[in-house]
Structures are given as C-alpha cells and as structure tokens.
C-alpha cells in the first residue's frame, strides 16, 4: 500500500485566511492511502521544503501531496525537493487550494469543504501514480541560419565560434543584406561596407560555417533537436569552384537588367555579381533575363571565359541536412514607392526612397558618391526628405513606426549638406524619434551644424511640374502651409518584412504577427525565440530595428542555440500519451486530432504510435481514442474516474 504524505500550506493569510487549514490536514489524514499529514505556514520556503524532505525519510513516504498554490508556480520546486529525498519526482503532486479555492471564495465553511474535496481528488490520483523517468531526446548539434544579412552573419559567427557547425542559407548570390547597400551608418558615420565586409569574409572562411548562397529552403520537417531540412541550391550556370572572379563575362554581357542592389538606379548584365565585395565573389546568370535562355543565341560569356567556367547545362540541386535548431533572420524590405499614390505612385523619377538615396551617397554606387538626381543627372540644390511615408498610418498603410527613419533621414540630410554645401535640405517629420545611445546628440548636432530645416508636418502631395518636383506640406509649429519646389525628394518608406518571409514561415510553421513580422514567444521576456521549440528569430524580420539592436538580437538567438546544444540531451516530460498496442484497432482517429503532429502510424505493426519528443500531453488523442488504447501516463481513465468520484464527495 502506498504511503502518501499530505502537506497543507497556510500561504500566510492567503489560504489560511479563508480555509481552515488545520481541519484540512486532519481530514486528509483520514483519507484512504494517507499515512501522514501536517499544515505549515509557508511550504515553499527553505524550512518548508526541508520539512518535506525530512518527513519523506521519517515517515517512509512513497508519495507526497502539497496542498497549496497553483502548480505553475511551485510544482518544480517541490518535485526537486522530493527527488532530493530520494522520491521519484512524478510521485509529487500539487493540490491547488489557493487560486481555485481560497482566492475565489469567502465563505469559510464552504471553502474548507471544497479544499478537502480538492485534496481528496489529488489523493485518488496519487494512489495510482507511477514513477516515471524523463524521456531523453537527442540533439543534432548543427544549426541552420536562414538569411545572410547582418543578423544571420552575426548569429552564424557566434555559433560557429562556440565550436558548433552552422549552415547559412541566403537566397541572394551574396550575403550582406541591406547593410551592404548603405553608405555610412548612424550615429558614428562608419562606412557601412568597411565594418560589414570583415564579418562577411569571416563567414566565408570559417571552418564551422557552410555557406549556401543563391539557395532557398524547400521543406522542413522534424522537431527540436532533430530537424530535417531540404535546401534548393539554385543553378548559377557558373562553375563556382573553377571561377576565378576575373569579371570579364560581366563586362561583355549585352543584356541589361535593372540592378536590385542599386535600387534600379543602374543596370547590370544578366551575368553579374551583385557588388564588388560580394561573398562569395562568384557570378550568377539570371535565367529570365539571359539572351541565350530566351532566344538560344549569344553565349558570349562562355566564349570569353578563359577557364570555361560557364555551364548552361547546370540544374538546380537539392540537399538534405540534419540540424538541431533553426534561426530565421530574413530581414526587411521597404514599402515600394509605387504604393504611395499621393507621392507620385512611382511615376515621378525624382521621387526615390531611402535605400536608393544610400546608393547615390555610396562611393561604390551608380553615381560614385556624387548626388545626382535620376531624371537628368543634375545635382539637386533643393532636396526634400519626407519621413513617415507609409508608417504610422493605420488607415491606409502601416500602423507601426518604422523606427529607423528619423535617424537615417537626419543622416542623409547631414551627408547631403557635406557634399552639396550650397544646397538646402528640408525634412518633413511628425516626431523625431532618436532613442538609441548617442542618437539624440547626433540629431542635435546635425540640426545645429548643418542648417537643416526641420518642418513639422506630414506631406500631403508630391507631383511633377516641369523640371521641379512640387511638395505640399505644412508646419504645425507656425501654423502655416509650406510649399517647396524641390529638385529631389527622398521618401523614408515604411519597413516591411522581406517578401519571401510569408512563404517561408508556412514551411517552418512558425507564427507571424498582423504585419507579417515574426512573432516572438513573449514580447518582453522572450524576444529571440519563437513559441515553437527549436525555432529562433533575429533581426529586422522580427520588427523594424537598427543595426546595434539587430546584432544584439542575433547574438541572443545564437546564445539560445548554444545553450540548447550544450545539454547532453533534451528532457521531455514523460507524463504524455502512450499506446497499448494490444488494444489499438488502427483507426487513426488519434493522428487526425493531434495538433502537434505527434501521432504517427506504424504500417508494419498496424498500430498508432506516439512521437514522444513532440507530444505535449494535451490529451486530445486520449479523449478521441475509441477503444481506450491511447492513455496518458499518470492520468489514466481509472485515475480520472476515481478523481471525479472524489471531487463529487463520494467514496
């Protein structure tokens, strides 16, 4: 016969104020199976736990019940205490007589009676509890990072430096993301490529990082510690192992396609490397724009390549990898200028977005760092920057603030003024948000030193008038409307998730929020993980943010992965579903009701099985099973039956 001990907690006045705890202890002592009972003022305290350990030994107990607060608070505390005294942790149960009794009732008589019933119910469960062992789940100590921007790069380096292997998958031909497009970064005005390329090179050379660019995720299956990933490696039509990067093919290609890297301000051939510092520095041929693929003629690149690295016969290949954790760092895009109807809808050539202006500023950009406007190459002398283009607009565009625009617009105006000293920059804003370290000082400095005119008002309309671009705005600080005949207008367009993210999350089966950004497990306390085990998130894919925050988040996600890999194995709670094969009829109802895809069918045996690593113990399959073959450990049908009887006051 099992010897059960019951410990009733006063919880100060929280329980004892409403429930007669001494009486509960006395009644518990009389219950079937209970050989010992006491009450104590604070069970979760050090002396309280010591009491549990002491009495287990003294009274030779096989199981303990702590009648106290909700198990979400202290179940693990008491299970640890019990195991320290040599008891199996699953022989320790909590009877919730606080949240479910003393905190919701005021009648002492009735509350006490209910508390006794609650304890009685748990006693009945405990009588039939089995001792269980946690289920070990193996971990593949290899990480997958999706996205090769600064977030993905940082996370990969951190994990690789800790000794684990990383696969970095990037859909573009080169890693670097948007940071590679920037000219200088705020608030230090560091040259963006200069601080980024060392990290890119480190990734390219790291022995622990396998870099797969021009590749996409095809399919993901499995569970935390044990993912199987199918990756599509797109055919570049160039043999990268042979290519020396001489660049002759790119010079000769007759095709012209707008450069996405240069935000369509310039063109390149169908065979191209996105930018000179690309990692890997190998060209790809864009099939849709290639003359040969379209018409069967040309093949000029093949002719001029001295190594013979061009290979039009290449096909997309697929690889399968086993990984233990996946970090999604797919980054952001900006709202297309075409979407902003009242700002010219993309048809006014001298209305460009922030990233395009970065390319104009960049020394390696289409105008070699000279600020020349797209329509006629003239240097603009009246330049207008419009903040909040598509942000903070729940009615028509995006409701959220894109966070980085106030800083980069000030940076743009300041850099413009450095280069065009007789020019006049204007910035239309609603608020100036400069919360990061050194940001307010950066803004003050720019405002004071550079003669930038800040106009507080949202721009209503932008249109073309001859060679000028007319901007209609207002200044609420003077209460007057403002009209400027600008030479160039730069819109700080809203930050949105990278276009490919929406498709990707369906394959990963992780959550996104209402605006398409990846959802974190808890907005305050768990910002770098998804609620789905084994999936971590980092960078602007989770929400608009600047480079310091991105790097911090990337390292945070990497840390979570390293922490996962540092354990010998994962421990799965054993109080989950199991199948009695004798009883299973093979109807497969359990498989269809499982929300976690944890139920599988063993064809050979003709019975259903439980994937113990995935099962969360929700009980859906147990309820659905017609023949009672599926049961939950320590919550069997017979346990439930006697618990129900006890709770109704019967014997």
């Amino acid at each position, binding site marked *: 016969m099992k010897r059960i001990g019951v410990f009733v907690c006063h919880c100060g006045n929280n329980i004892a104020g409403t429930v007669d705890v001494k009486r509960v202890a006395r009644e518990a002592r009389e219950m079937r199976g209970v050989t010992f009972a006491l009450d104590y003022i604070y069970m979760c305290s050090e002396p309280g736990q010591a009491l549990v350990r002491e009495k287990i030994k003294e009274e030779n107990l096989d199981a303990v019940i702590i009648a106290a607060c909700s198990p979400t608070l202290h179940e693990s505390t008491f299970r640890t205490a019990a195991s320290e005294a040599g008891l199996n942790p699953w022989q320790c149960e909590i009877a919730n007589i606080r949240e479910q009794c003393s905190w919701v009732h005021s009648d002492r008589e009735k509350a006490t009676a209910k508390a006794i019933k609650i304890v009685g119910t748990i006693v009945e469960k405990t009588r039939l509890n089995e001792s269980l062992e946690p289920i070990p789940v193996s971990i593949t100590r290899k990480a997958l990072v999706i996205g090769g921007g600064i977030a993905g790069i940082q996370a990969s380096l951190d994990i690789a430096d800790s000794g684990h292997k990383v696969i970095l998958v990037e859909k573009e031909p080169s890693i670097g993301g948007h940071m590679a497009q920037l000219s200088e970064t705020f608030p230090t005005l560091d040259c963006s490529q200069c601080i980024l390329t060392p990290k890119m090179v480190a990734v390219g050379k790291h022995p622990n990082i396998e870099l797969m660019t021009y590749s996409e995720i095809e399919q993901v299956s499995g569970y935390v510690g044990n993912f199987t990933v199918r990756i599509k490696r797109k055919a570049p039509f160039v043999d990268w192992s042979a290519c020396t990067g001489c660049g002759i093919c790119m010079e000769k290609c007759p095709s012209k396609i707008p450069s996405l890297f240069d935000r369509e301000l310039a063109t390149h051939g169908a065979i191209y490397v996105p930018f000179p510092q690309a990692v890997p520095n190998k060209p790809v041929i864009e099939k849709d724009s290639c003359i040969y693929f379209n018409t069967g003629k040309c093949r000029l690149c093949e002719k001029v390549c001295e190594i013979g690295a061009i290979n039009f016969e290449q096909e997309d290949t697929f690889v399968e990898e086993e990984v233990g954790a996946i970090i999604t760092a797919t980054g952001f895009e900006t709202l297309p200028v075409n979407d902003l109807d009242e700002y010219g809808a993309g048809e006014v050539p001298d209305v460009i977005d922030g990233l395009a202006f970065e390319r104009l500023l960049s020394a390696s950009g289409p105008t070699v760092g000279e600020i020349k406007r797209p329509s006629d190459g003239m240097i603009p002398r009246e330049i207008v920057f419009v903040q909040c283009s598509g942000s903070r607009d729940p009615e028509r565009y995006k409701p959220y603030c894109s966070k980085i625009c106030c800083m980069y617009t000030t940076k743009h105006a300041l850099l413009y003024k450095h280069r065009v000293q007789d020019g*006049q920059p204007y910035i239309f804003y609603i608020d100036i948000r400069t919360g990061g370290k050194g940001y307010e000082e950066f803004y003050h400095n720019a405002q*004071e030193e550079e003669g930038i005119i*800040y106009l*507080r008002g949202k721009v209503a309309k932008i249109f073309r008038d001859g060679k000028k671009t007319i901007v*209609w705005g207002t200044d609420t*600080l*003077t209460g*007057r*409307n403002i009209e400027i005949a600008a030479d160039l207008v730069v819109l700080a367009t809203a930050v949105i998730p990278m276009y490919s993210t929406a498709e990707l999350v369906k394959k990963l089966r992780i959550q996104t929020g209402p605006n398409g950004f990846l959802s974190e497990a808890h907005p305050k306390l768990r910002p770098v993980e998804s609620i789905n085990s084994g999936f971590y998130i980092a960078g602007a894919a989770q929400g608009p943010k600047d480079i310091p925050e991105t790097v911090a988040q990337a390292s945070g996600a990497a840390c979570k992965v390293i922490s996962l890999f540092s354990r010998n194995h994962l421990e799965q709670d054993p109080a989950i579903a199991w199948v009695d094969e004798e009883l299973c009829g093979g109807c497969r109802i359990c498989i269809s009701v499982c929300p976690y895809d944890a139920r599988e069918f063993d064809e050979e045996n003709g019975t259903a099985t439980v994937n113990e690593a995935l099962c969360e113990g929700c009980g859906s399959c147990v309820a659905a099973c017609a023949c009672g073959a599926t049961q939950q450990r320590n919550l069997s049908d017979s346990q439930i039956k006697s618990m129900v009887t006890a709770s109704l006051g019967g014997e």
Partner: protein
Amino acid sequence: MTEKVGLAPPVSPPIRLTRGSYGFKQRVIDLSAQSIDACYQCGNCSSGCPLAQEMDILPNRIIRLLQLGQKDDIINSETLWICASCFQCTVRCPRGIDIQAVMDTLRQIALEEGIDHFGPGQIDPEQAAEVPQPGLVGVYRKQST
C-alpha cells in the same frame, strides 16, 4: 481708364521656401551669436515667460518664424516690445540658446527699420521723476531709436 480691382489676398498663403529664404536668419545669427538652428521647439521658453500672456506671438514661435525666414511677421509683432528682458527663457533653454540676446537683436533690427516703439513724448513726467534710472535707461535702450 478704369481702375482694376484685384482679388483680395488669401488669408494664409503657404510659405514658399527656397535656398534664398534665410538671409534674415543668418543676419540675426551673426549679430546675436546664437545658434538659431539648434532650437527644436520644445516650448520651454514660452511656458516660463512671465509676459507670455500679453504677447501676440509666443517666444518659441518667434524663433520658429525666424528659422523659416519670416521677417515681416516678427518685426511687426507686439511681442518684441512686451518682452521684459528678464532672462527666464535663457536660463531654461535646453539647447543653450540665449533667447534674450535674440530678442534684443530683433528689437535692434526693428528699430533700424524705423519701427519706434516708445518715445520720450510718451512718458509720464511724474513717473519719470520718480522711477529709478535703470527703468528709464532700459526702456530707451531697448524700445526706442
């Protein structure tokens, strides 16, 4: 020949800003040695000004109009003559702008343009006999040519 009657001018025409709009601002910057562009319109100067209740344009808006080169609005305001030069704004400005110096400069420019606010004919002789000298000197130096 008939006289052409033009349309009445609009009440609040938009301000048309170009590079050339800032000569006046630059002059005030040079004379007062204050960094007008540093003002970010927090409004602290107006909040604490003891004479704000008498003014038609509040001090922060004067600075704002100055930033946008609106000379006429400023010169013709009552504000310049209601300011008592008490320095409260200067002490409180978070960007360290000596607003009192800017006001003095604006007054000086207004006086140069012939806007004479106060003359000896306007003083009450009885008062003139009794008021301590700083009062007389102050009003003459700041408010009349």
